[in-house]
């Protein structure tokens, strides 16, 4: 599994518990220090510094990709999704969480 824009590893940590010892969670973040911080805090096993639009991994390297509350920083979604598609194995799943503009003013 690849956790894109992992930040301090709040998603990668629980994900590691879910996939268990047989699985592998790789965390990626563009920040200079956040990948190292995430590892030092023990939330992340493997962290990589890099941009989500140009992920330094081979084609079809992951079965699952997630990106949590970082989609709004993507300059070109089609480019980014093309890159995520490249990274996923066949029938692999991508999960995106994002805040949506409220449908009414009161909310």
């Amino acid at each position, binding site marked *: 599994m690849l956790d894109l824009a992992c930040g301090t590893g709040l998603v990668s940590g629980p994900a590691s518990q879910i996939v268990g010892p047989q699985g592998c969670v790789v965390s990626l973040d563009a920040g200079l220090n956040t990948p190292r911080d995430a590892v030092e805090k023990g939330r992340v096993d493997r962290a990589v510094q890099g941009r989500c639009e140009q992920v330094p991994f081979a084609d079809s390297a992951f079965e699952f990709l997630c990106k949590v509350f970082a989609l709004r920083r993507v300059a070109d979604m089609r480019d980014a*999704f093309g890159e995520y*598609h490249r990274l996923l194995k*066949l029938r692999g799943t*991508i999960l*995106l969480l*994002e*805040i*949506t503009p409220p449908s009414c003013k009161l909310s």
Partner: protein
Amino acid sequence: MFKFYLKPATPKLTRVSTLNHHARSLMSHFWGTLEYCAPSKMILEALRPSGFTKVRRHIQVDNFSEYRAVKGRAAAALLSSILSRVRVDNSIQLDQQLAAAKVGQEVEHVRVGPKVSLQQLSRFKVVTCPAYIGLQQAGGRSKREG
């Protein structure tokens, strides 16, 4: 309400809970970007042409969206990508257009009829995503040459 909670309230609560003024600045920046959050329609429309299938959106509390999609078979993904960029109708001009085009030619506006095969479509350089390069080359040239 949502804006009030996230923009002024959350950074202040973060400052109090972490006792770190940098945390407040960070949260202010983070929630400030919410003004520019991507509309769900844009996200969904970008996922499909990128080759994802079974694109779904699940909404929580009117403001939180979960998007889930699956990487389908390469041919299906290619077709999905093509169909998103071309006009789909029952045109009979399809075969003529495909026959006239050359392998590797960029065809963005062909009309796709109901009887088009994936082999036909994969002859053409319709998708620019690098992930499809192998499929483009494997589409028809090797069969004809072989």
